[in-house]
C-alpha cells in the first residue's frame, strides 16, 4: 500500500475498497461507464462528510462570516507589514455593479439598483450576495467562465456553437452545485460525446500529451508542458513527470462505430492497451502522478479513473489549492498565486497562510465552490473601492483596492442590451446571431481579466455597430422611448441613464455637463440627445470595465 500523507480517511480507506475490484472480474471493466466506480466511492465519502458536519443554516452562515473575517485579517496583516493603506469600502453603487458582474455575469437593472440603494438593512450586502448566488444566472455565468478556462478562445462562430455543449454541461453541474471534486472526476472520466467534456477531449484530439498538459493546468494549476521536451532547468518537473501523467490518457480511442454528430464532440472508449513513449526514444513511461509516489496500479479501474481518484483525493496537494486560487482570482482579478493557473512551487503565493486556510476551509466544506465564492464575496477585501488611495500605488498582490477588470464579451454584450432595453421587434433568433457574432469578434486570448485585450477593429465594432448603435438609437431603444415622457426633468432622465449604465447617479459635475448638453438640443431632438449621452456612457471605460 502506498504511503500517502494527509488525512487518513480518504485514500487509505479507499484502497482496500478498490482492491475488491482488483481481485475479481471487476478489474476488466474497461467499458463499464467510467464514473460507476468513482460515483459509488464518492457517494460514500459524501456520506462521511455529511456525518461530520450536519447542515445548519445559521451555523453555516456563522462559519462563512468567521472565515471572511479571517481572510480580512490575513490581508490586513500583509498591508500593515508593507505599511500600505487599504482603500475605503466601495459605495453601494460600485458594490452592486461589481457583485452582479462577478456572480451573475451582468450589470443590474435600474430597478434592482434603486432597490438596493434604498435598502436600509445593515446586512443588505450579505442579502444581495446570497440572492445572486441563488439566481439561475449564477450557474450560467460560472459555466461561461469555466468554458473559457477550459477551451482556448476561438473567434470562429462555428466553433463557438460547439462550445455550447460543454457550457450546458457545466451549467448543469453548477446549478446543482455539485461537489467540485465530483465535477472534476466526471469531467476527467467522461465517455459520452453528448456530455460536454466530450468536446474538450475532441478539441485536444485525444492526444495524451495535450490532455495531460491541459488537465494539469486546469485542475491542478500545474504547467508541466515545458517538461514535455526536456527537464526544466528551474522547475522541479522532469520529463518523466510529464509523460507519466500523459500515460493516464494513453488508452483512449473513439468507438469504431462512432457517428460523427456535428463537429467536435465524440464518444470516448477506455481500452486496456496503449502506452506513451518519450519522443524520439523507445522509452515507455508508465503512469505516474506528478510529485507523488502513489502507486497508480493499486487504484484499479481505467487509467483515467486512476488519475481521477488521485486528483480528487484529500491528499492531493494541488487540486483544492487550484480551485481556491481560481475562485480568488475570479473575484479579485488576480490569484493569491498569479497567474492563477501557474501554481508551480517556484511561483509563490502572495499570502501563503491565506491560501492554506482557505484550502482547508474549502475541503472541510465538502468542496463547495458556491460557498467558497460566497465567503470571498463577504469579505471587506472584496468590498473595497477600486479607486486609487494615493499617487504611490500599492502593488496589486497586496489587494489594497479592488482590481479593475475587463468584462468578458458576453458580459459586455448583455450589458449593452440591458442599457438599451431593446424593443421586442428584434427576435430572439436575431439577437442570438448578433450576440454570437459580437462575442466571436471580441474574444480575448488573455485569461487575465486585468488586461483589456482588444484592438482597433473591435473598438470600431463597439462604437459603430450593433448592439450599441441599436441601444442608443431612439427608434430601437425602449429606454430612450420611455425617457422622452414629457413629465420627466432632464435631471431625472440623466439619473436613469447613469443608473442604467454605471449603477450610480451622476455626480454634480456630470449633471451640469449633460444638462447643458441636453438644453442645447432642439425639442424634437431630445430623444436623440439622450441617445448621444447613452452612447458616451456605453463607450466609456467606466461602463466597459468591472471596478
Amino acid at each position, binding site marked *: 500500500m502506498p504511503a500517502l500523507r494527509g488525512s487518513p480517511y480518504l485514500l487509505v480507506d479507499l484502497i482496500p475498497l478498490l482492491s475488491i475490484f482488483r481481485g475479481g472480474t471487476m478489474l476488466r471493466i474497461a467499458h463499464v461507464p467510467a464514473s460507476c466506480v468513482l460515483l459509488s466511492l464518492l457517494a460514500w465519502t459524501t456520506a462521511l462528510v455529511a456525518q461530520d458536519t450536519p447542515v445548519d443554516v445559521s451555523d453555516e452562515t456563522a462559519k462563512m462570516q468567521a472565515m471572511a473575517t479571517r481572510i480580512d485579517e490575513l490581508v490586513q496583516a500583509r498591508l500593515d507589514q508593507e505599511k500600505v493603506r487599504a482603500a475605503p469600502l466601495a459605495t453601494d453603487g460600485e458594490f452592486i455593479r461589481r457583485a452582479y458582474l462577478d456572480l451573475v455575469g451582468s450589470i443590474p437593472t435600474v430597478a434592482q439598483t434603486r432597490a438596493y440603494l434604498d435598502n436600509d438593512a445593515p446586512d443588505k450586502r450579505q442579502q444581495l450576495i446570497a440572492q445572486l448566488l441563488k439566481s439561475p444566472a449564477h450557474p450560467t455565468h460560472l459555466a461561461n467562465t469555466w468554458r473559457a478556462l477550459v477551451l482556448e478562445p476561438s473567434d470562429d462562430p462555428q466553433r463557438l456553437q460547439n462550445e455550447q455543449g460543454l457550457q450546458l454541461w457545466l451549467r448543469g453541474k453548477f446549478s446543482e452545485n455539485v461537489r467540485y471534486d465530483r465535477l472534476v472526476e466526471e469531467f476527467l472520466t467522461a465517455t459520452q460525446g453528448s456530455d460536454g467534456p466530450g468536446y474538450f477531449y475532441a478539441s485536444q484530439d485525444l492526444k495524451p500529451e495535450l490532455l495531460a498538459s491541459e488537465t494539469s493546468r486546469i485542475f491542478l494549476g500545474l504547467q508541466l508542458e515545458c517538461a514535455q521536451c526536456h527537464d526544466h532547468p528551474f522547475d522541479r518537473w522532469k520529463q518523466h513527470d510529464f509523460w507519466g501523467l500523459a500515460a493516464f490518457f494513453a488508452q483512449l480511442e473513439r468507438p469504431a462505430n462512432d457517428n460523427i454528430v456535428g463537429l467536435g464532440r465524440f464518444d470516448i472508449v477506455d481500452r486496456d492497451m496503449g502506452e506513451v513513449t518519450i519522443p524520439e526514444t523507445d522509452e515507455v513511461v508508465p503512469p505516474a502522478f506528478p510529485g507523488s509516489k502513489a502507486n497508480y496500479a493499486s487504484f484499479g479501474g481505467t487509467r483515467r479513473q486512476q488519475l481521477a481518484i488521485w486528483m480528487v483525493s484529500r491528499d492531493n496537494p494541488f487540486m483544492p489549492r487550484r480551485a481556491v486560487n481560481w475562485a480568488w482570482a475570479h473575484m479579485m482579478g488576480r490569484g493569491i498565486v498569479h497567474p492563477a493557473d501557474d501554481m508551480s512551487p517556484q511561483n509563490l503565493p502572495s499570502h501563503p497562510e491565506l491560501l492554506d486556510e482557505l484550502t482547508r476551509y474549502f475541503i472541510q466544506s465538502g468542496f463547495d465552490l458556491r460557498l467558497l465564492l460566497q465567503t470571498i464575496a463577504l469579505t471587506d477585501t472584496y468590498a473595497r473601492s477600486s479607486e*486609487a488611495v494615493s499617487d504611490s500605488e500599492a502593488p496589486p498582490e497586496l489587494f489594497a483596492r479592488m482590481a479593475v477588470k475587463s468584462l468578458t464579451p458576453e458580459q459586455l454584450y448583455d450589458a449593452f442590451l440591458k442599457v438599451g432595453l431593446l424593443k421586442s421587434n428584434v427576435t430572439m433568433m436575431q439577437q442570438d446571431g448578433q450576440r454570437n457574432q459580437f462575442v466571436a469578434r471580441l474574444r480575448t486570448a488573455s485569461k487575465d481579466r486585468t*488586461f483589456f485585450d*482588444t484592438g482597433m*477593429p473591435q473598438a*470600431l*465594432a463597439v462604437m*459603430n455597430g450593433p448592439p450599441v448603435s441599436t441601444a442608443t438609437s431612439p427608434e430601437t431603444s425602449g429606454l430612450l422611448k420611455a425617457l422622452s415622457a414629457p413629465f420627466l426633468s432632464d435631471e431625472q432622465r440623466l439619473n436613469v441613464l447613469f443608473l442604467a449604465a454605471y449603477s450610480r447617479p451622476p455626480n454634480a459635475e456630470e449633471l451640469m455637463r449633460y444638462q447643458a448638453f441636453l438644453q442645447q438640443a432642439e425639442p424634437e431632438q431630445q430623444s436623440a440627445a439622450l441617445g448621444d449621452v447613452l452612447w458616451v456612457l456605453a463607450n*466609456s471605460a467606466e461602463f466597459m*470595465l468591472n471596478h
Partner: protein
Amino acid sequence: MNALPHSRRRFLQTTAGLLGAASCSWLPQLATAAGSDPNRKRSCILLWMAGGPTQTDTFDMKPGHANGGEFKETETNVPGLRFSEHFAGLAKQADKLAILRGMSTREGDHLRGTYLMHTGQRPGGPLNYPSIGASLSKAMQDNQSTLPNYVAVNPSGLLSGSALSPGFLGPRYAAATVGTRGAPAAEGSDEMADLGVDFLSLPPGIDTKRQEARLALWKDQQNQFLARHPSGAAEAQATIFQSAVKMMHPDAASAFDLSQESTEVRESYGKGTFGQGCLIARRLVERDVPFVEVTLGGNGLGWDTHQGNFPTVERLSKELDQGWSTLLRELAERDLLETTTICWMGEFGRTPNINGTAGRDHFPDAWTCVLSGGGIAGGQAYGKTDEAGREVTEGKTEVQDLLATLCRAVGVDPATEHYSPQARPIKISEGTSIDQVLA
C-alpha cells in the same frame, strides 16, 4: 506642403488628432516622399488565392506533357523563365518575381490547408496559432499609427476564421477587414467594386457634427474615470478607443476611400474586388501599414477548379495579372517596391492530371508559391518538379521555410518569439530561409 517640418508619420498623427480638420490633398505628395526615406519601415502584401490555385496552369507549366492542359507558355523579360500566357503583365516584370516551384505540404483540405499556410502549423493542437499577418504585423507594427497594422481585404467568408486569426496574440492583433459595401458585385460584373472597412463609418443617422459632440463629452467622461482608477485595463481601453476614433477621422479613413483615385488608376487595377483591393493595399503601404492581405477567389473558393478548370483559371489569371502587375508598377513608381514584399499563395496546389470533368483536384505534394518585390531576388525559379509535375525533384520547400523566407525579406528575424497565454515563447517560424531567393 512640399517641405514638411516633422516626419510624415508624426504629422499624420497630429492632424488626425485634430477633430474636424479639413480633409487635405497632401497625401499623394507625402507618399512619393516616403519612398526615399532610408528609415522607412517595410510592408508586406499577401495575395491569398482562396481555393488553391493550379501550379501547372500558372507558374510551373508542363508543355508537351499530357498534364499540360490547354494554355500556352509565354516568354517573360527573364530569359528561360516562362509563365502562362494569361500573365501578360507579370511577364514584363518577371525580374521582380521569384517562383518557388518546390512547395510541398501535407494538408489537402481547404480549412486545414488555409490554417497551415497562414500559421505554418498543422491544425488540431491546443494552441491557436496566429496567422502570419498577425505575427508579422506585431513584429513590424507602429504603435503610433492611426491605421490598423493588419488589414485584410475581402477575406473568404468561409475560411476567414482560421485564415485571419490572431490566435494566442489576441484580438489586438486581429485584422481590420475591408469588405464589399452594399450588394457584392457579381463575378465578372462590369461595375467597380465598392470596398470599405467594417464599422469604420458612423452608423446611419449620425452625422459628423453629432459625432463631434459625442466625442467631446466622451473625453471628459474618460478622463474623470482614468484619474481615479489608474490601471492597465482602463488605460488600454482609453487608448484603443481613442485610436479607433482617430481612424474614423476623414484623414485616416481616406486611406480606404478609393474615390480619391482617378478612374484611370482604378481601372488599371481591374474593377473587381481583387483589383480594387490591390489598390487599397498600395494606399495602405503608402501610409506605412505593415501587413495587408488581399484575397482573390474568396466568394466560393474560386480557385477550387474540380470541374471546368481552364475557363475559370483563365478568368482568375487575368484578374490576378492585372491587379498584381499594376501593384508592382505603381509601387515601383513611388519608390515603395524595395520596401514592400508581396507573397502569392493559396492553401495547396492542384493535381497535375486533368480529371474526367476537365478539372484538377487538391494536391499538396508539389506546387508553387511566388515571392516578389522588396528583399527578393527576382527573375528566378527556385525548385523543380518532374516532367509530369507530380514530385518535387529539387529545392523542396516546406511552409515553415517559405514563411521564414518571407520574414527575412521584410527584415524580421523568423526566430522572433511571441508568447502564448502560458508564456511559452513561440517563434514566428522555425523554418530555414532560402537565401537564394533573398536579395
